[in-house]
C-alpha cells in the first residue's frame, strides 16, 4: 500500500536573477525586473512529498514531526529570511526557482533517508510554480 504524504512549508527570501556569463544589458534583457541590482523577495511555498508504504503501527508514511525536523534544519533554517544569492549553492547558479527546487530536492533526498523523497514543488507566487522529482 504505497501512499504519498505531502507537507507544505513557507519561507521568505530575497534573490536576484543575474549571471556573470551575460553582459549587464543581456542580464536585463533576459531577467527583466528580476535583475534589479538590489534584489527582491518572495514568500515561497515549498511542498515536500514523501512516498512509501503506510506503517502498520502508526498509519503513516512518515511521521510529520520527523519531516518537520529535517525540513526545518536543512531548508527553513538555511533559506528563510536570507538572500538566496549569498548561499554557496547559488554562487555559480542563478537563483531561479527551478534551481531552488533542484537544490532543495538534493538537500532533502539524503537528509530524509531512509524515507523516500518523491517530489519538491515550489510556488514562487500564486501563479508560478515549479516541480522537481530528481533524474
Amino acid at each position, binding site marked *: *500500500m*504505497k*501512499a*504519498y*504524504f*505531502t*507537507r*507544505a*512549508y513557507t519561507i521568505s527570501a530575497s534573490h536576484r536573477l543575474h549571471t556573470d556569463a551575460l553582459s549587464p544589458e543581456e542580464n536585463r534583457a533576459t531577467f527583466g525586473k528580476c535583475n534589479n541590482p538590489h534584489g527582491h523577495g518572495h514568500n515561497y511555498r515549498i511542498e515536500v*512529498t514523501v512516498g512509501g508504504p*503506510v506503517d502498520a*503501527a*502508526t*498509519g*503513516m*508514511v512518515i*511521521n*510529520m*514531526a520527523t519531516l518537520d525536523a529535517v525540513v526545518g534544519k536543512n531548508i527553513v533554517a538555511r533559506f528563510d529570511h536570507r538572500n538566496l544569492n549569498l548561499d554557496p549553492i547559488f554562487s555559480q547558479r542563478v537563483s531561479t526557482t527551478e534551481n531552488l527546487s533542484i537544490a532543495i530536492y538534493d538537500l532533502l533526498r539524503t537528509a530524509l533517508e531512509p524515507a523516500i523523497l518523491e517530489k519538491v514543488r515550489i510556488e514562487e507566487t500564486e501563479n508560478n510554480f515549479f516541480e522537481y522529482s530528481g533524474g
Partner: protein
Amino acid sequence: MLLLTRRTTFSASHYYWNADWSQEQNEAVFGRCANRNGHGHNYTLEVTVTGAVDPVSGFVVDLKWLKDVIEHEVLDLYDHRHLNLEVPEFAKAIPTTENIAIAVWNRLVKPVTAAGGAKLSRVRVYETDDIFADYFGEA
C-alpha cells in the same frame, strides 16, 4: 488520457492511538494528536477519475453522479462523525491522512469501476491546506 476531479469537503474528529502501545509511547510518536478527547479538521477530498470522453455527452463521467457516489459511499459515513469511534475501517487502522486516503479509495473503487467508462485514478485528502496524502491504488 484525461483526468477529471471532483472536490468535496467533510468535517470530522479523530485521534491517533495505537492500542498496542503505552500512553507514553503514543504521546511520543503522535504528540498532541494522541489526546484521547480528540480534535477535528475540515477535510478536503479530491476524487480523480480517468477515462475516455463520451462522444455523445462530452463527459468522462457525469459529475452529478460522481458527487452522489462520493456522498453515499463516503460523506454520509464520515461527515460530522468521529472517525475512530463511528467509522468501521478506523476501529483498528489509525485515521491518519494516509489511511483516510486509502479507505476512501477502497470505498469508491468498486462503485466507480462498476459504472463502467471511468477508472478511479487518485484520491487526495487534505487535512489542512498544508498537509495532504495521495493514494493511487495498489502499485
